[in-house]
């Protein structure tokens, strides 16, 4: 059990929850996730844990942060946890992003709440690598918190929304493509809705740009025992990859994505 230090609203239905992670056995890597029990007292309903990517981790203060959007029963309950309450979490789980050593220009492309795992990645990479961040959402208010956090790092950041013009008006993919001629990418990291992952992957592969993406599959266990999160590898339908073990981060072109 871990103590909650903060759980506050930071955008429309978006919360930041900070946990005192003093009992973690392993330090999380960017792109890894935790599986959170969202019950109060001894309730077994909802039954399954909920997966959330690491938004940030500070090994000195031992603070572990998630940023989540309230979308249903579990996240609703999570948002009602108070400072001082205990939280049961399993992790770090899954395979995170590969941290490249001698790539020159790295692009991070995030859509909606899919921006969350990219922040920890950016924070870990920002001092050694040249980072360009492209973030998109429906509205500007969804981006405010992320904009503030990323702007504290050494990186260039561009924003877009569907509903209003920021640096651009449209999707994160469109924003990225518009800037690509002037700002070449050696390697990209993508996270967002599956439709967006598919679209970005297609454009990147067509340009021979290498990279990784993080998928959001519905999970049963998060630890590889139930096969709920099974992805079909591009090689063959019979080669399966579990998003919770072999993922959630995959190479571009590694697994089949759905519209």
């Amino acid at each position, binding site marked *: 059990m871990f103590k909650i230090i903060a759980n506050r609203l930071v955008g429309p239905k978006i919360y930041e929850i900070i946990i005192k992670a003093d009992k973690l056995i392993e330090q999380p890597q960017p792109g890894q996730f935790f599986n959170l029990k969202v019950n109060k007292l001894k309730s077994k309903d909802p039954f*399954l*844990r909920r997966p959330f990517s690491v938004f940030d981790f500070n090994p000195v203060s031992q603070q572990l942060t998630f940023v989540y959007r309230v979308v249903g029963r579990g996240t609703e309950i999570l948002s009602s946890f108070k400072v001082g309450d205990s939280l049961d979490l399993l992790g770090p789980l899954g395979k995170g992003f590969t941290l490249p050593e001698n790539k020159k220009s790295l692009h991070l492309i995030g859509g909606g709440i899919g921006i969350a795992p990219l922040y920890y990645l950016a924070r870990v990479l920002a001092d050694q690598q040249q980072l360009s961040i492209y973030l998109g959402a429906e509205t500007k208010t969804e981006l405010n918190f992320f904009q503030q956090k990323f702007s504290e790092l050494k990186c260039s950041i561009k924003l877009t929304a569907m509903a209003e013009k920021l640096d651009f008006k449209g999707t994160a993919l469109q924003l990225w493509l518009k800037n690509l001629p002037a700002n070449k990418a050696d390697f990209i990291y993508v996270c967002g809705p599956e439709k967006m992952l598919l679209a970005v992957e297609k454009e990147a592969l067509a340009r021979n740009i290498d990279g990784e993406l993080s998928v959001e599959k519905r999970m*049963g266990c998060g*630890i590889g025992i139930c096969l*709920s999160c099974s992805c079909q590898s591009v090689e063959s339908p019979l080669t*399966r990859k579990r998003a919770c073990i072999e993922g959630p981060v995959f190479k571009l072109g590694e697994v089949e994505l759905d519209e």
Partner: protein
Amino acid sequence: MNKQQSATDLTEKIDLATVLKAKNGSHLKLKNPLITASGTCGNGHELAKFFDLNQLGAFTTKGITLQAQPGNKTPRIAESAAGIINSIGLENPGVDQFIAKKLPETAQYNLPILANISGYQADDFVNIAIKLAEQKEISGLEVNLSCPNIKGGGMIFGTDPENVFQITRKIKQVYPGYIIVKLTPNITDITTTALAAEEAGADAVALINTLSAMKIDIEKQKPLLANTYGGLSGPAIKPIAVKMVYQSYQKLTIPIIGLGGICSGSDVIEFLLAGATAVGLGSINLREPAAALRILAEIKDYLKKHQLNKLSSLIGAAHQ
């Protein structure tokens, strides 16, 4: 002797062992009644990160089919009140790859391995059983009859007593080891199929598998699972499972492995009282990977509280 010592002594005197009797006398002895349920425990090493697997009574593999199966499309899992609905679709590498790759891994642990087998026609079960009969690491077969009979128009094997009888008998002819027939609850009277399994020579029955169910995504206005239908498991189905174990106990002479929604020591006790000789832990492993250890401790607490030193004395006790 100090207090702490006497408490330990009492715990050590508690006998959690249970025996799954066999027709031919080669009983399956378990050090305790907890068996991981098929499809909810991976291949062993995943759970072994959370606790010493050797603490379990036995381990059941994911369903094995003759040929490799990719499984269903995702989403494969949905939630309902205190339950989950899954449609994994028997994703597995097929019996040959199971023997070559998976079995050696699971066999590292020092506990009986039950191989859960599935088929789409009667011959599939027979052919898998022939191959598994040569594997001495396997202590028995658990025959999953909750799958559609392709040649029989897609009807679920386990819903027809005659089918249950025929398949069990065919497997019995080629497999000399322990045979457990796992029954589907999607039937009016489960004792008809339980009796059919017993008459055909099954050593034990396991009940229940998941209940047929579905969920509709009201935003998309479409079924949530890619496969439309799935199987309901978890706490939501426990009372149904307890009833089915209780009913079957009244008619059968072979042992019953009870499962469905078990999450605690009290749940296990309830199944034992209803007539189960051993129990399966399924969905709980998804929520709490080390649940088995907690449950074992809770069982011991119950026995201590009731001043019982043998778990087996509880089996079927609710019928007296």
